[in-house]
């Protein structure tokens, strides 16, 4: 069984983003720390668990982005992936899900993946599209928001449960090959084992130039980044910490939310 896991690099905290309102742009500030998208960590962990159940399975990890992205691919190797593929773009990337899905599909086509896993969404742009678009391009089946999976003994089908509103679950069985987008909480992602860290250090990543891959013209364009909507004009409680505490207690008492 060949498994591909799609991973994305994201910033660790949105607090390090720099917003230029007149240009309508957000850039990474100097103190930005990058890491693997958390949802993709769950997808990678699930792939590794499948490999542990089916001894003949192989897990590849793929990511699209600047040379810096190689670090999270190496992280995937440290967690236990067999092989890392880097679809490299020059410099900082601002690609839509559509472009990412087509680049990954071009790199993956012909490699005979039985199962493709991705996180349910990326923490930064929250589009939830790469997995299902990739499935459409590869003509694979697809289930999103997967919180449980079990591959049949013959390796031909996978039973999944999708998490839906209110925590209910939709149960379905898909034929392989297919794409599953993985919901957080399906497992507990592991820390890299020392043996894998050492192996990852000497592993070569497979590097593919994005410019050499076939991809159709983008379906959409970012016009600009806007500040958030106004929302509720709530009151910010100011003052020293003690004053804030006292004021909050007073407000809660006035609304009979705290006993006197």
């Amino acid at each position, binding site marked *: 069984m060949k498994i591909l896991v799609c991973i994305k690099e994201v910033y660790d905290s949105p607090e390090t983003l720099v917003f230029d309102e007149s240009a309508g742009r957000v850039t990474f500030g100097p103190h930005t720390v990058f890491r693997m998208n958390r949802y993709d960590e769950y997808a990678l962990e699930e792939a590794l668990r499948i490999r542990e159940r089916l001894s003949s399975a192989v897990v590849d990890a793929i990511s699209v982005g600047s040379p810096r992205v190689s670090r999270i691919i190496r992280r995937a190797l440290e967690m236990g992936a067999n092989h890392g593929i880097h679809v490299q773009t020059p410099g900082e990337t601002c690609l839509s899900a559509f472009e990412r899905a087509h680049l990954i599909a071009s790199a993956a086509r012909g490699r005979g993946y039985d199962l493709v896993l991705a996180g349910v969404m990326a923490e930064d742009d929250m589009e939830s599209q790469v997995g*299902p678009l990739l499935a459409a391009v590869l003509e694979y089946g697809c289930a999103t*928001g997967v919180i449980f999976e079990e591959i049949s003994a013959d390796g031909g089908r996978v039973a999944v449960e999708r998490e839906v509103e209110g925590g209910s679950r939709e149960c379905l069985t898909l034929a392989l090959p297919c794409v599953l987008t993985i919901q957080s*909480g399906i497992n507990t992602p592991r820390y890299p084992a020392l043996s894998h860290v050492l192996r990852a250090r000497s592993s070569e990543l497979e590097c593919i130039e994005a410019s050499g891959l076939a991809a159709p013209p983008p379906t959409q364009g970012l016009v600009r980044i806007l500040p958030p909507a106004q929302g509720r004009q709530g009151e910010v409680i100011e003052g020293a910490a003690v004053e804030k505490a006292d004021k909050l207690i007073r407000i809660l008492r006035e609304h009979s939310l705290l006993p006197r």
Partner: protein
Amino acid sequence: MNGRFFIIALHEGGRVREETWRLVSFARRCGVADPVMMVLSDEGAIEQLADELAHRTGLDVAGLAGSHLREYSAEAYIRTLVPFFRDAPEEAHIVTAHTSRGIDFAPQLSAGIDACCITAVEDVGQGTFIRSVHHGRFRAEVRADRPRVVLTVLPEAFAPDDVAPGNPGKVRIVPAGDISLSTCSRGARAPVHANMGLTRAEVIVSAGRGLGSGENIRLVTMLSSLFPKSALGATRAVCDQGWLDYSHQIGSTGNTVSPRLYLACGISGAIQHLAGMRDSGMIVAVNTDPCAAIFRVAHYGIVEDLTTFIPLLVDRYLRGE
């Protein structure tokens, strides 16, 4: 908006889901008064669903019927909708709700008809669509570069609009054939982590990742003990970390609550979490990050470090300040 405008209604248990009426508001926001309502089901249920749509909206309805649509699956929807829209006029907006099902089939539908797909749309610009990005701290204005556009729309961003202005719309039932699927639906399972304690509580003290560690859960426990009829809530991230179990989870895939007081501790305010608590009577947010999205739904906001502020707050209260 140019071209045709279609709203795909989602349904469950023989009834149209409530989000659908909000999509009608969205259409009006786009300047479209006469979108076509669409619904997909098997022959046994399609007429009742289509009639409900026609009566409540006064809009024309296309009901696509086939035995493969008895239960929802992305494959069944895509294999029905792709041929339908391939034959429709090229310029079209196709809209559904940004729910677990909408987001399950919309991207694949867009790929099948060479459309642009924009998800979690919450507002409309000048021929553009606006969605939250970067943990709700900013919004992106996005332009579609294809004549066909598939949108998933955040239901809570629009008010329900289901007052039919006059006569019911015309209903057209379209046989969609009986397609043999490779996906097999096996029904639904009830929520594993429903929590009656949370839905009954008058006060919910809720923990987010900003708490920093599982050890600090004792702080929110301590705070909640000040309130009678209180319960502990949490974001999905806190449950994923194992700091609290999933029965405490509040948000789109967890519990939906509307207590008199919601005290959000270290919660950034992702849309998935807001979906589960935004109707609370009073929302108080405490967070170190003054730009956190939670402050835009809060009635009262406090920028402080929880590890020092909660003990201080409890201390001041117990001293009778």
